[in-house]
C-alpha cells in the first residue's frame, strides 16, 4: 500500500527490472533491466532503432515470445495481474481481453481465409459469452468505430480485398473489439504512405481518448511518437536510456543518443549542411559492453562510462537519463543555481 501514496492512481502497467534473454551461444541480451510504469489512459512511446529491444519489451507484455528459447526475469504487472505467472486459459483471457496488440503489417496479422467480420466475431465470442449474431453486430459496430466507410459491406470482405490503410483500420477494430484496457502498438503506421499514416495516427489518438485506454506505442519515428504520445522512452541496445514527457525529451534531450536521434531526424537542421550524425552502429546484443552500451559511439565517453551501474540524472516530472555525462552536467547546473 506504500505504493499508493507515491502514485495517486494505481498504474495500469508496472514493469520492474525486466530482462529478456534469448538462448544462443553466447545468449542474446535483448532487454536489460527495464523498469517503467504506465498510468491508465496514458500513452507511452518507446523510441528506438532496429534491435533496440522495443518490440521484445512489447511482446513480453502479451507473453508472445517463444517460451522455450526465452528467459524472462523481473516483474511484469498489467492491471494488477502478474503477467509472467499467467498460464493456459488465464493467459488467453489476458491476450485480447485485458491487453491487445496491433502490428506493423496487417496483411500478416489478419487471417487471409476468414472475412473481417468473422475474425472480429470469433474474438468477441472467445472473450465474452454472447451469441454469434450479437458478435457480428459488435464487429459491425467496431468497423464503424474505426471509421471504415460503408462498414456493413466491408464486414464481408477478406483482407486482400481492402487497401493497406483500410486493413490497418480493420486490425485496430479487431484489437479493440473486447475493449482492452491496454493497447500495444508495434510500429502500426510504418508500412503506410504518409497521407494514410497521419489518418491512422489521428484515429488512434481519438480512440485512445474515447475509450480511455493505456497505450504503449513502439516506433522508430520521432515524428510519429510526438503525434501520439504523452511520454517518451528512448531505448538503446535493450535498455531505456532516457524517459520523460514528450515536450521535455524533444526540447531538452539529455542523453547523447537521444540528441543524436533528434539530429538524425533533421530537427532544426539547415538544408544542405552536414548532419550531426552519431558514428558507428549499435553493439551486437550477444556481446554488450560493460557499463553504458552507447559509450563506444559517444563523443562524451570517458572511463566512468565503462562501470556499472551508471549514474542516473533525474529531473522533475518523472524525467531521467542514464548517463555519466548528463548526470554530471545536471549536478553542475544544480550547484550553480544554489550558489
Amino acid at each position, binding site marked *: 500500500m506504500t505504493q499508493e501514496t507515491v502514485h495517486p492512481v494505481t498504474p495500469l502497467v508496472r514493469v520492474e527490472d525486466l530482462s529478456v534473454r534469448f538462448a544462443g551461444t553466447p545468449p542474446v541480451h535483448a532487454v536489460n533491466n527495464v523498469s517503467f510504469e504506465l498510468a491508465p489512459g496514458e500513452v507511452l512511446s518507446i523510441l528506438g532503432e532496429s534491435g533496440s529491444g522495443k518490440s521484445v519489451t512489447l511482446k513480453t507484455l502479451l507473453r508472445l515470445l517463444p517460451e522455450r528459447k526465452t528467459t524472462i526475469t523481473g516483474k511484469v504487472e498489467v492491471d494488477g495481474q502478474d503477467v509472467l505467472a499467467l498460464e493456459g486459459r488465464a493467459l488467453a483471457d489476458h491476450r485480447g481481453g485485458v491487453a491487445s496488440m496491433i502490428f506493423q503489417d496487417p496483411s500478416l496479422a489478419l487471417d487471409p481465409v476468414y472475412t473481417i467480420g468473422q475474425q472480429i466475431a470469433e474474438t468477441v465470442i472467445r472473450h465474452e459469452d454472447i451469441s454469434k449474431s450479437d458478435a457480428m453486430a459488435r464487429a459491425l459496430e467496431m468497423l464503424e468505430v474505426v471509421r471504415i466507410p460503408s462498414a456493413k459491406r466491408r464486414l464481408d470482405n477478406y483482407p486482400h480485398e481492402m487497401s493497406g*490503410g483500410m486493413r490497418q483500420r480493420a486490425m485496430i477494430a479487431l484489437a479493440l473489439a473486447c475493449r482492452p484496457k491496454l493497447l500495444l502498438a508495434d510500429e502500426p503506421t510504418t508500412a503506410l*504512405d*504518409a*497521407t494514410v499514416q*497521419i489518418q491512422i495516427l489521428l484515429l488512434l489518438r481519438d480512440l485512445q481518448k474515447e475509450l480511455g485506454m493505456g497505450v504503449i506505442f513502439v516506433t522508430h519515428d520521432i515524428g510519429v511518437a510526438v*503525434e501520439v504520445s504523452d511520454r517518451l522512452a528512448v531505448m538503446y541496445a535493450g535498455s531505456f536510456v532516457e524517459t520523460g514527457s514528450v515536450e521535455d525529451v524533444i526540447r531538452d534531450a539529455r542523453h547523447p543518443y537521444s540528441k543524436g536521434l533528434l539530429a*538524425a531526424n533533421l530537427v532544426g537542421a539547415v*538544408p544542405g549542411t552536414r*548532419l550531426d550524425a552519431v558514428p558507428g*552502429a549499435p553493439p551486437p546484443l550477444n556481446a554488450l559492453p560493460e557499463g553504458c552500451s552507447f559509450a563506444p559511439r559517444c563523443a562524451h565517453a570517458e572511463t566512468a562510462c565503462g562501470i556499472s551501474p551508471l549514474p542516473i540524472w533525474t529531473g522533475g516530472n518523472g524525467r531521467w537519463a542514464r548517463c555519466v555525462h548528463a548526470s554530471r552536467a545536471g549536478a553542475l547546473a544544480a550547484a550553480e543555481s544554489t550558489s
Partner: protein
Amino acid sequence: MSTPILSAHNLVKHFNAGGFGAARKVVRAVDDVSFELAPGETLGVVGESGCGKSTTARLLVQLLRPDSGSVRYEGKVVGPELPLKAFRSKVQMVFQDSFASLNPRMTMIDAVAFGPTVHGMSQSDATRKAQDLLDRVGLDPSRFGGRYAHELSGGQRQRVNIARALAFDPQVIVLDEAVSALDKSVEAQVLNLLMDLRRERGLTYVFISHDLNVVRHISDRVMVMYLGEVAEIGPAESLYSAPRHPYTEALLAAMPSLDPDRRTMEAPLAGDPPNPIDPPPGCRFHTRCSRAFGPCSSQVPPSHTVGKSHVAACHLNSVKEQVA
C-alpha cells in the same frame, strides 16, 4: 539553365495488368513525364507508393525501355546517339534493398571492381580503385574488402553500393530510396557521405524518397509525382514554403509534426491513393482534392509556370493567372 546534363522528354511507361481485348487493364505507371537536371544539382522526387517514382528512376537509367519518349544525356538521345555502354558509365543507380543489389557470392572488393573490368580496366587497376573507393565511403578495405554481403550491416552494404556506383566515375547517380531502409542514426551518416561526395566530385543526384524531411535537406529542386504524372516541380525552398499544387500541400501537411504543442489536428487527405490502373480522368488528383472545381474532373490541367523554374499542374493556377 545551362545545357541539362540529363533530361527526360515525355516519358511514358504502361504495364500490362492482365485481361484481354476491351477488358485489358493497363497500369499507367509513368505518363508523359519530362524534366531536366542541371549539372551538379540534386533533384528530389517525392510521392506515395504507386506514383511512378521508381519507374521514372528505372526509365532514367535505361533499366526499362519507355513506351515513348526519350532520355538525353548532355543533349544526346540515349540509344541512337549515345551508346548504352557509354551512358551507363555516366549514370549510375543505388537501390533501396542493399542486400538484393549485391551478388551474395562476391566479396566487396570484387563487387566494386567488377564494373570497371567489364568496361576494360585491368584487374589490378580495378582492385586498386575498389580499395580506394571502399576507403572513401568509410570502409577499411583490409577489414571489409574480403567480406561477403551477408557479413555487413545494412548501412555498410549501402556504402558498398555507393562505392560501386562511383567505380565508373559517373556524373549522375540515381538514388532510389537509398537511405530509406536504414536506421535513423545510420541514415544520417550515409546522407553526410552523399553530400560530401557531391561536393568533392561535382555529382548530380536524383534523390527519390518518401521522406520529405530528408528530401528537403539534400535537394536543390523537388519534383512531386502523383499517379504517374508530375504534379509540381520547383526549387526546394519555394515548393516547401509555398506549394502551388493541393497535393503538395497535402503531402506537407501529412508530415508528422515534431512540435508537441502543434500536433496535426486533421488529416489532409481521406482514403488511400487510388490505383494507377484506370486513373481518374481530368486531373488525376481531383477525386481526393478538397479544392476541386469545374474543369478538374474533365480537363487535364496544363503545366503552369508559377515562379522561377517552378511549375505546377493544377487548374487553380489558371484561375490565379486570369485574376492577375
